[in-house]
C-alpha cells in the first residue's frame, strides 16, 4: 500500500476576480509597459520645451497669435466625457462581479458609445492644436501624445465591442465576467492617463 500526502484541488474554481486571475495580471503588466511609455513621452515633451523660448511657438502667419495655446473646447469635452464614463464602468464592473448579465450588457453598450464618441472628439482635438505634426517639434510631440492615447482609446473601444458581442451572443461565463472586470481596469487606466496628458498638453503651456 502506498501512502503519500496530497493536496486535493479538485474543488477549486476555474476563475476568480482580480489578483486570482493570470489575465488580470497580464493586463496590469501591459499597463505598466504603456505607463512607462507615456512617462517617457511626457518627459520628451518637457525636454523639447527647453528648446523653445515660447511654448507653443508663435505662428508666423497669424500676426495676432504670439502664443497659440491649444484650444480647450474639444479636449475638455472629451475629458469630462471620459471621467464621467467611469461611473457606468464602475457599475458594469460591479455587475460582472455579482453576475448580473442585464447590467453588464447595458454597461458595455454605454462603454462602446462613449468609446466611439471619445474617438470622434479626439479627431477634432488635433485641429485645436495650431500645428501639424510636421510643422515643428512642438507639433510633433503634441500630435504623438494625442495619437498614442487615441490608439489606446481605439484598442479599448474594440475590446468593449468584442465583449459586448460576447455577452449578447455567447455564454455569460466566469471567464468573460473576469474579462469585463479586466476591461474596467484598462478603462480606468485610459481615463486616468488621459487626465494627466490633458493637463500636460492643455494646461502646462498656460502656466508659463
Amino acid at each position, binding site marked *: 500500500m502506498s501512502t503519500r500526502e496530497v493536496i*486535493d484541488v*479538485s474543488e477549486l474554481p476555474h476563475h476568480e476576480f482580480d489578483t486570482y*486571475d493570470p489575465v488580470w*495580471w497580464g493586463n496590469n*503588466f501591459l499597463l505598466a509597459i*504603456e505607463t512607462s511609455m507615456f512617462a517617457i*513621452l511626457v518627459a520628451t515633451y518637457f525636454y523639447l520645451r527647453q528648446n523653445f523660448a515660447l511654448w507653443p511657438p508663435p505662428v508666423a502667419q497669424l500676426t495676432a497669435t504670439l502664443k497659440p495655446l491649444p484650444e480647450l473646447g474639444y479636449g475638455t469635452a472629451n475629458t469630462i466625457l471620459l471621467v464621467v464614463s467611469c461611473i457606468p464602468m464602475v457599475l458594469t464592473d460591479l455587475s460582472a462581479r455579482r453576475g448580473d448579465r442585464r447590467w453588464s450588457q447595458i454597461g458595455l453598450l454605454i462603454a462602446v458609445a462613449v468609446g466611439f464618441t471619445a474617438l470622434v472628439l479626439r479627431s477634432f482635438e488635433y485641429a485645436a492644436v495650431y500645428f501639424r505634426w510636421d510643422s*515643428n517639434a512642438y507639433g*510633433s510631440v503634441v500630435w504623438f501624445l494625442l495619437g498614442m492615447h487615441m490608439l489606446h482609446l481605439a484598442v479599448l473601444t474594440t475590446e468593449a465591442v468584442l465583449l459586448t458581442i460576447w455577452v449578447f451572443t455567447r455564454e455569460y461565463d466566469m471567464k468573460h465576467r473576469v474579462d469585463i472586470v479586466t476591461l474596467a481596469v484598462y478603462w480606468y487606466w485610459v481615463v486616468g492617463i488621459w487626465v494627466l496628458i490633458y493637463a500636460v498638453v492643455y494646461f502646462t503651456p498656460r502656466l508659463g
Partner: protein
Amino acid sequence: MSESQKAQKTAEAAEVSNFTISEEELAAAMERERGELEKTWARPTGVWGWLTDTDHKAIALRYIVTAFIFFVLGGLEAALMRIQLARPNNHFLSPDQYNQIFTVHGTTMMFLFAVPIMTALGIYLVPLMIGARDVAFPRVNLFGYYVYLIGGILLYAAFFLNTGPDAGWFAYVPLSSAYSPGKRVDIWAQMITFTELSALAGAVVIIGSVFKMRAPGMSINRLPLFVWAQLITSFMIIFAMPSVMLASGLLASDRLIDTHFFNPAEGGDPILYQHLFWFFGHPEVYIIFIPGLGFISPIIVAFARRKIFGYTAMVLSLISTGFIGFGLWVHHMFATPIPQMGQSFFTAASMVISIPTGVQIFCWIATLWGSRLNLKTPLLFVLGFFWVFVLGGLTGVMLASVPLDLQIHDTFFVVAHLHYVLIGGAVFPLFGAFYYWFPKWTGRLLSERAGRLNFWLMFIGFNLVFFPMHQLGLNGMPRRVYTYLPETGWSTLNLIASIGAFILASGVLVFIINVVWAYRAGMVAGDNPWAAESLEWAVSSPPPNFNFHNIPVVQGRYPLWEGIENAPVVRGLSTTKREALVTSVMDAQPELRFEIPGPSIWPLMVALSAAVMFIVGIFTPWAILTGAILAGIALTCWFFGDPNYENHTARETGKKSPTISPVSRPPELQPKEI
C-alpha cells in the same frame, strides 16, 4: 451548485479518499492518467502544427536555435572585421561594407542574440523550475517568437540586398536621419520595434508565470535564483524597452512622415535621441547580464554540491542591480554637454553598481570555497566568467570617471570593455548553461572532452582578441573606422587580436560539432545527470509535454535535495483538459484550476499583421492602417475563434481519477476558501 449537489459531491470525495488501493492498481491508474495527459497535451504535428504549437519547450528551443544562428552570423561579421583590421591599409572590405557590417554585428548581437536567448532559456526553464505545466500565456509566447523571427529575417534580408543599416547599432541622429537617405536606417528602426515587441511579450509571459503558476509551497523566498534573475530581468524589460521603442519609433516617424523630434532646425533635439536610446541601452546591459548571473548560481550549487551562500543577499543584490541599472545611462553620454552636477551623479551611480555584483561574486566564492568541486565543463565556463567579467567590471569602474572617459571615448578601449562585460557576463555563463541544461533539452550529454577544448579555445581566443584592444584604445585607435595607417604602430596588436578571433571562432565551431554529435550519439543523460537540486531535474529528459504528472508540493529551496519523492503532491487537476494550478503571488497557496490555451494559428496572424504594419510601413504610411486593421481582425478571431477552448470539447472520460490514500492536507497548504 445547489446545497444538495454540494453535499453529494463532498460525500463522493470522502468515499474516494477513504478508498485504498493496492500498488498494482495505483500503478495502473497512474499509467492510465499519464496516457490521458499525453493525449490532452499532445503537440500538433506537421507544418500546421509547427505554426501553431504553443508548448513552451518547443517555442524556447526554436528561440534558442534561431538566436544561436544569429550569434553565428554576428560572429562571422566579427571575423570579417578582424580580417579587415588584421593589417594596415587593408582593402578586404570597402568602407561602406565595413559600416554595414559593424552595424549589423552590433545589432545582431544585442537584439537578435543576447536578449532573445536569455528570454528563451527562461521560457524553457522557468515553468519547469516552478513546477508548472506551461507558461501563463502560451499564445502570447508564440506571438513573441514570431515577431522576433520576422524582425531578424527583415534585418538579414535587407543586409544581403546591400540595404543593411550602417549608422551603428545605436543609430545616432543626425547621422541616422539627415545624413542617411535610403531605407537602411528604416530597416534598423523597424527591426528594433519587432525585437522589442518580442522581448516585452516574453517579459510579460515570464512575470505572469512566476507570479501565478508556481507549485504550491514555492513561496517567494523559496524561488530558485535562476527564476529570480529572470523575474528581475523581465521587470527591467518592462520599464526599459518602451524607451527604445519610442526612440526607434520617433526616428522612423522623423524619417517617414517628417516629424521633427530630432531635427534641431525645427526645435527638435539630437541629444534627446541619445537619452531615449541609453535610458534603454544601459538597462539593456543588465537585461543581458542578470540572466547570466541566474545561470551561474544553479551551476555553482550543482558542482560545488552545497547550498548557495547568502541566498537573501544574492536576491537583494539582483534587485538592487535592477534598480541602479536605470541610473547609469548618462555615462554613455559624457561626451555630450551634460551639466557637471549630472555627470557626478552618474559617475557615482556607475561606481555604486559594482557593489551588488561584488556581493554576488563573494557569495559564489564562499559557496565554492572548501567544497569538493566537480570540475565539469559548465563550472569551467563559470570560472572563466569570474576572470573575464571581473576584468570588464574593473574597466567599467575606470570608464565611470569623466576625464578618463573623455580621453578614451570612442576608442578600442571601450570595445574591449564592452566585450569583456558582455561576453564575460553573458556568453560564458550562457555556454556553461548550454552544457548544463543540454541533457534536459535532448536527453543526451555533451562530450566533456570536447567541452574542455571548447572552453579553453574560447577563453584563450577571447583574451587574445580583446585584451590587446585596451592598449590599442589607449594608443588612440578609434572605433568604427575601417582601416588605419602603418605609421600608427597599431599593426602588431591588431594582428594578435585577429588571430585570437579565429581561435575564439574555432571554440564555437567545436561547440557546434559537439552539439551535432551529442544530439545523435551523446551519452544518455537520465533525469538528473548532475545530481542537482531544482525541480526541472525531477522530470524526464526531455520533459513530457505536460511537464509534471503530479505537481509536487515544494517544501524548501532545494526540493530535490530535500526529498521531493516523499513530498505531498497535488491531485485533482483535470487530465482531459489543459488545466494548470494557479497559486497566490507571495505564498503560492492554490487558488484556481486555470485552463491554459492550446495551439492556435492566430498568434502567427497577429505577428504577420505587425509585419505588414512595420515593413510595408517603411514605404507607405497607409500600411500602418492596413496592418492595424488586419491585426484587429486577427485579434478578434483570437478572441472568438476557438470553440475548442474552455470546457467546450473537454474530453471527459467519466472515470474518477484515484486519489492516493490517505488524503490529508498539510495545514498551511489548505486550498483557500474563495
